């Protein structure tokens, strides 16, 4: 199945976008969790502070559906 991952900032370096400057198209096996998908493309989950799909925060245990777009956020802790 196909999944689209988006990221900005420092996470882009790890994501290696290929659709546009912020988006990567990922082919993965149905039933994989987001955590496993990230690991399969070389992104350590520790670099992802949160992820969202539509208007909902999702945990890394989320199992994406075909065609889903998920945005990843790096840790943001400065003040």
């Amino acid at each position, binding site marked *: 199945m196909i999944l689209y991952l988006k990221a*900005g*900032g*420092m996470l882009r370096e790890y994501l290696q976008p290929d659709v546009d400057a*912020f988006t990567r198209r990922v082919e993965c096996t149905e039933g994989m969790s987001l955590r496993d998908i990230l690991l399969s493309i070389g992104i350590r989950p*520790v*670099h992802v*502070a*949160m992820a*969202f799909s539509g*208007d*909902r*925060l999702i945990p890394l245990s989320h199992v994406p559906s075909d065609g889903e777009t998920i*945005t990843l*956020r*790096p*840790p*943001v*802790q*400065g*003040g």
Partner: protein
Amino acid sequence: MPDRYARQSSLPGIGPAGQRALEQSHIFVAGTGGLGSPVLMYLACAGIGRITFVDRDVVEITNMNRQILFDSTDIGSRKTDVACRRLSAINPDIHLTPLDTPLNEQMITESDFPIDLVIDCLDNDPSRRMLARACHARGIPMVHGALAGYEATLAVFQSRTGPCYACVYPDPPVDAISPPVLGGIAGTVGSMMAVEAIRVILDVGPDRSGSLLLMDFERGTFDRVYATRITECPICGIGSGSPKI
């Protein structure tokens, strides 16, 4: 003589009664840096009657790109001293309590004056968790802001009725100690935090607690996303040892 607050007290949702409510409110601000600077300045401008703020740092040259409470002549001075002077000049009618010590929970849970709202302008996760614990213990809403690079987060947490900071970040995030920050982004987000604080105090507009505004100034996107309370949350969840709701 024209009223200092004439241009805001005529707003729907404020009015003379709202202005009095602002003047009778007490806000606790943790951090006087990139976010804390605009937050404190706009709270002072708005006439928040009592502001307590905590920061134990001195002004440094590297603060100058974003911490607009301070200027080059303040380098080496205690931030709380300079902030107090600057805020008093902005509005001499408000009561300021600067705390030049490390943040602790008792500043909030044992405050002599009841705190209506806490604003998180901190720069690290452990202190944010401490603040969230104190807010949950007293049922105080917490306005949270954070930034790194081109990205920023803004949220209001009311942990007695919705998710708290630790529900959103169950695992302490790994982060650079001094992430790169563009001053204008700190100013924008800090100003928005001050607006959220006033909205919460006056109950203006819809309740947005439990949602996060995720901003990416490079992509030019603002996404509002919704979090849910987690039962195993170490701060507000079952078994956290916090007061039960």
